[in-house]
């Protein structure tokens, strides 16, 4: 499979990465090189093979459903580019 320029733009939008017009052709070439490389997998007979979901076989660990952390709002927002009190600020999303 390979991607066309419209698909490159669509992927970029899904990934929320702005792509300039003059970058599209270049990206298309790179993505198609990678897709051609991974195409080798179509040779493998995977009928009836379970996909790997756990690298090291183990039972999912669960912890008690209790509050064991918190009251650290200052630390939580300390690295934010824009805040007001303990809120993250973003451009207006609702008119």
């Amino acid at each position, binding site marked *: *499979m390979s*991607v066309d320029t419209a*698909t*490159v733009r669509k*992927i*970029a*939008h*899904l*990934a*929320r*990465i*702005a*792509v300039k017009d003059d970058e599209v052709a270049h*990206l298309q*070439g*790179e*993505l198609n*090189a*990678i*897709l051609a*490389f*991974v*195409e*080798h*997998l*179509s*040779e*493998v007979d*995977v009928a009836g*093979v*379970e*996909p*790997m*979901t756990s*690298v*090291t076989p*183990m039972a*999912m*660990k669960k*912890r008690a459903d209790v509050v064991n952390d918190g009251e*650290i709002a200052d*630390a939580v*927002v*300390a*690295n*934010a*580019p*824009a805040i007001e009190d303990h809120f*993250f600020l*973003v*451009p*207006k*999303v609702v008119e």
Partner: protein
Amino acid sequence: MTDLTKLTLTEARDGLAKKSFSALELTDAHLAAIEAARALNAYVLETPDQARAMARAADERLAKGAGGPLEGIPLGVKDMFATRGVRTTACARILSNFVPPYESTVTSQLWRDGAVMLGKLNNDEFAMGSSNETSAFGPVVSPWRRRIEKKILSESRGPSKDVAGPDLVWKGMKTSEEEIYDTAKLVPGGSSGGSAAAVAANLCLGATGTDTGGSIRQPAAFTGTVGIKPTYGRCSRWGIVAFASSLDQAGPFARTVEDAAILLRSMAGHDPKDTTSVDRAVPDYAAAVGKSVKGMKIGIPKEYRVDGMSAEIEKLWGEGAAMLKAAGAELVEVSLPHTKYALPAYYIVAPAEASSNLARYDGVRYGVRVPGRDIVEMYEKTRAEGFGPEVRRRIMIGTYVLSAGYYDAYYLRAQQVRTLIRKDFEDCFANGVSAILTPATPSAAFGIGEKTSEDPVEMYLNDVFTVTVNMAGLPGLAVPAGRDSQGLPLGLQLIGRPFDEETLFTLGGVIEQTAGRFTPQRWW
């Protein structure tokens, strides 16, 4: 006083115990070496004040006889590990101003055991790369250079006075030789290029690394250092900047197998904060070094004899096998039939997980923000400016293979192939094979800028021997085993059963003992 930076971690620990020098002196010697080696660009942040404070505290504990297993040992930390109050960027522009309010579990265990942090080490952006050239801080320069000529000045002359420490000579080198080096800058490998270069150039006694597809073992092989990627689940991933969560593991770099074993013991262990961390006792790995390998069955996988493999790598592989055989191990040819599919499957699984993990960098909660007219434009501009070309490429591939209509064809199939890759290894181990010996890399280190073609796959092929191990979640150790015709170090890889890092340290110790150690000549 001897140059304290030339000691091994084990020697430094003995020296501290005997009070031959203080932790502060040991740290100061390393800080001076780091300052003199800025041309290598190995450290992206030096933390001398913190290092001296930690060293003084270590001296106090040592004086009271209360030192931990790494008391006073100066280490470097890959910039993928969150360090409380110390800028942690993953060498990415988007995280260039991030100061974590928390400490990664692995580094916290190193400080718990008394180690001293010298600073943060360079790596490929978000650990995506095999040469350290994608770092937002620029490439790391390897302390190694290609040898152009070797003049024998006088063969009859005895060893010179320089041969004070065991690490100053490599086997077979005569001090009466004059070697002329090419000044072309080489890569240290990646993604843990800063860690590998710093350990090789004596800018720390050991360093942390992370390995998703070979990011510890390939740079270790390129720099003549020892590096181990432990079994998936052995080290906690908590507080490590996530790249591909089902593949990422932390591990140490050191100048000897024993030093790497000592570091891993401190780094490993159960952490309730990482659900994939394994609740299993941590053995004394260093005790495994020097044990007998008599009767051990070592697998030589025929599929690793790849097309176009250099004669030098093939020779090195044979020599490594001979070293293990001479020590009493039995060599058996084994088959890992799905080997050639590991790299293509990796380039689906790793970007898919990366695209998901890196969705968090949106300019809202931390990191750099580029303003936009609305929130979507803000996201898109932030991520366009914040990510470098390799990271953007991988996020886009990952987004594509996970998108509607393609998930089964790509991601699901890759995870099925992964099951087959793991089964290849399981079959091998079920036949009584204790470990598998392979080359670590297809070549010696290449030059900075030499592999920047239009085709990103060319760089990806560097990980052809290491990536299978991540796909199967197994432990893999890279140990230096020889040099190429230009004098550059070459490494071999030992792959073990799940949670049997000890056998790898035992076998790695045999190779180290026979091949000797490899130290670059200082030029910086």
